[in-house]
């Protein structure tokens, strides 16, 4: 399990814990951010499983953006880009 956290540019802390071999097996995102509706984070986490370890920043962003759009959800203090950035750094 790899853990990585940082204060992202939108102002809140994002921590990712990721279980990975060639692909992402499990991902947990925690932090002091806001996301409405809250349950959307479960979908974001699930959508990352199965992605290759070297998945691109853009692919991660796109996946998160699509989920956010599908659920008409709002992120406060974080963004799809910030989550992708922290995840990419964890996967390095």
């Amino acid at each position, binding site marked *: 399990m790899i853990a990585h*956290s*940082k*204060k992202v540019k939108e*102002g*809140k*802390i994002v*921590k990712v814990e990721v279980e990975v071999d060639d692909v992402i097996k499990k991902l*947990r*995102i*925690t*932090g*002091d*951010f*806001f*996301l*409405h*509706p*809250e349950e959307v*984070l479960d979908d974001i986490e699930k959508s990352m499983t199965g992605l290759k370890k070297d998945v691109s920043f853009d692919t991660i962003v796109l996946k998160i953006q699509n989920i956010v759009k599908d659920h008409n959800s*709002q992120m*406060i*203090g974080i963004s799809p880009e910030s989550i992708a950035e922290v995840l990419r750094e964890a996967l390095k």
Partner: protein
Amino acid sequence: MNLKWRVIGLETHDAYLNMALDEAVSEGVRAGSSLPTIRFYNWKPNAVSIGYFQGLKDEVNLDVCRELDVDCIRRWTGGGAVYHDFEGEITYSVIAPANIFPKNIIESYRLICGWLVRGLESLGIEAEFRPVNDILVKGKKISGSAQTRRGGILLQHGTLLYGLDLKTMFSVLNVNRQKITDKMIESAQERVTCVCKHSDAGKMEVYEALICAFTEGKDYELGTWSMDELARAKELAEGKYRSDEWMYMR
């Protein structure tokens, strides 16, 4: 349309019932059986609440909490970990249809936090809202709030620091070094403040100032909980908020 509000005056409950009441009232407002509600409350025993997305073990020193008889609870709202000291703070909740507030979440924080700012101003304390969810006095945080919107209902709750017990606060919270470093601030003393450092007002006087500011221009009645709300809150307190499944969700 002039919305009718219910105001529930300062009460004291444990962490589980406090958070369960917010959820029970949200359900009631959604069903049309509860009036939009403003409530003020304290926490006894003292408690740590963590944000919906936070890892319990990341944020809270559970051993110290057990030692000091401090409850731990995961909130229904996002945001950060807060130490709720019975003597040292007043907590509020606002629960109402989301469509009476700005759609933009920051603007809705600004609106409700504005009531707190006006309450502080009536005590002679100059305060300002700082997005996302803080209120500052002379650049130091005096209040933090958290909001959720579910099923068309907005719930915002937040805390106003009346006094500071930093020693206990930092023994029960695992302080995030990164956050402090980022803000280039040496110590918590330099970034957190409380009402008693800026005013001689007693805690009840502060509460009265808040009630005046929160109800200004509103049609409201001083109310109590219905039997249904209390029963549902007790059910949520025991079945959800006290459960390991909820507590250790992240």
